[in-house]
């Protein structure tokens, strides 16, 4: 497989453009012949498919390139998207001047470097959460975004485009319900054991070295069970289990809870990292080869009000969506849902005069001090068409590109970096901690 190294890539893109007197910003202003926005999607076996679906809803947007380190995924993508070009190496893809924008849904450990590469190549950028694998990486992506300031960057915290959530936050920030006393980010996403470690060979269609990107290349191991990819045996941590290994992911804190943390911090109206953090947790209920905790509490002690995150991944009945799992969930989160669905993620914000509950990616409910329902902001997730979250987040990005301005972007890269830094600081606290029994 042809692979450019970074030095060659940089030479061929941003630096070469600069030498030629063509800035990345100028390059990015070009669009297709009909004024179409030509978008490439990177990493599209799972979440990236939702990106494609969202982008196709937007008039004047064309999917012109698809990139994945799994050649089989690329082949299927090209069949489903006639006319698009296929790539396994993103650096090669970024040489294509007929791409205006890149939408990234690759694994977490690739987000920062792929985002920076995209900006250096003069492409507008949509990049999934978390923004980085560590705080340092995220700082560099923010710096790159500041440097290539005419390129429009949207972070993948799609709840930021949730109409009801935005309205509720506007009122909370205006003081309608009194001062915020506490914000809780709740993630009860059920996960089964991934089983004990087993070595396995990587299929030839997956470029395992390229998949690692900036991460250390490690021998392929995975559990002999998995909650997501049982059909994808012998693919190591590729395609989902990477979430549970520190080399690539950060557990459900980095996977799901960052959405809730981002909203909770947004309610707090703070725009910096927390000065104090401490965590407690563990991997309970079974013994498997995963490294990240499945039970976790972190406290980010902001001066005005704390942000408390609660992650609980255990099943109650051995099933991910089993009926018993509703027990133990927070009753507050169930209040707002009129459907039979039992929400497992959400945010609870305690204000002086009311409690705000966010049970999904779009709406919010308000209760008085006695728990009496007062009002709903927006429609609940079961009442609207939400493709992988708040609809319109990609549309918000495209609108910004067309206006040539990041001013109205709903999820600025800096904000996502701050929320990402919170999940990293919580995980660092955990990883530097010590195992304790109840008596210690």
């Amino acid at each position, binding site marked *: 497989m042809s692979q450019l190294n970074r030095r060659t890539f940089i030479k061929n893109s941003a630096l070469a453009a600069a030498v030629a007197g063509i800035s990345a910003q100028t390059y990015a202003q070009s669009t297709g012949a009909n004024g179409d926005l030509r978008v490439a999607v990177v990493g599209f076996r799972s979440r990236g498919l939702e990106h494609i679906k969202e982008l196709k809803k937007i008039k004047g947007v064309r999917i012109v390139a698809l990139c994945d380190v799994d050649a089989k995924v690329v082949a299927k993508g090209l069949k489903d998207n006639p006319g698009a070009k296929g790539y396994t190496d993103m650096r090669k893809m970024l040489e294509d001047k007929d791409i205006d924008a890149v939408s990234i849904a690759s694994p977490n450990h690739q987000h920062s470097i792929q985002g920076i590469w995209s900006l250096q190549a003069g492409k507008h950028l949509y990049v999934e959460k978390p923004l980085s694998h560590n705080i*340092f990486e995220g700082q*560099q992506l923010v710096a790159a975004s500041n440097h290539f300031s005419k390129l429009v960057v949207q972070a993948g915290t799609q709840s930021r485009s949730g109409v009801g959530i935005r309205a509720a936050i506007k009122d909370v920030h205006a003081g309608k319900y009194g001062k915020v006393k506490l914000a809780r980010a709740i993630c009860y996403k059920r996960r089964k054991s991934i089983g004990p470690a087993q070595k396995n060979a990587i299929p030839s269609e997956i470029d395992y070295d390229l998949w690692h990107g900036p991460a250390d290349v490690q021998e392929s191991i995975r559990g002999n069970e998995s909650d997501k990819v049982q059909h994808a045996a012998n693919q190591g941590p590729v395609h989902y289990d990477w979430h549970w290994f520190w080399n690539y992911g950060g557990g459900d804190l980095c996977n799901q809870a960052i959405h809730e943390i981002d909203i909770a911090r947004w309610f707090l109206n703070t725009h910096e990292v927390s000065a*104090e953090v401490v965590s407690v947790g563990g991997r309970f209920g079974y013994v498997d080869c995963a490294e990240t905790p499945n039970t976790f509490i972190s406290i980010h002690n902001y001066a005005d009000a704390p942000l408390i995150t609660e992650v609980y991944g255990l099943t109650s009945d051995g099933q991910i969506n089993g009926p018993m799992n509703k027990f133990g969930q927070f009753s507050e989160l169930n209040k707002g849902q009129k459907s039979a669905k039992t929400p497992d993620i959400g945010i609870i914000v305690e204000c002086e005069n009311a409690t705000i509950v966010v049970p999904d990616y779009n709406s919010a409910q308000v209760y008085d001090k006695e728990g009496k329902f007062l009002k709903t902001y927006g429609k609940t997730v079961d009442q609207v068409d939400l493709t992988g979250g708040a609809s319109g987040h990609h549309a918000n990005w495209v609108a910004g590109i067309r206006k040539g301005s990041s001013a109205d972007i709903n999820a600025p890269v800096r904000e996502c970096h701050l929320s990402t830094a919170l999940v*990293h600081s919580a995980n660092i*606290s*955990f*990883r*530097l*901690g*010590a195992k304790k029994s109840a008596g210690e």
Partner: protein
Amino acid sequence: MNLDESKATLGAPLTQDTKTELFTGANAEAANRDLVAKRVGRKGFEIPTTF
């Protein structure tokens, strides 16, 4: 049940400079090592730092 496996991990209390985002205080050295040194990217995939 393996009692050792049932132990919870009590995380290290950390303080962080909100401007530089670097950790300060008692656990700063270890925390910042995790923050910065562990992942600047392997050869060929170094995280760009100048633009």
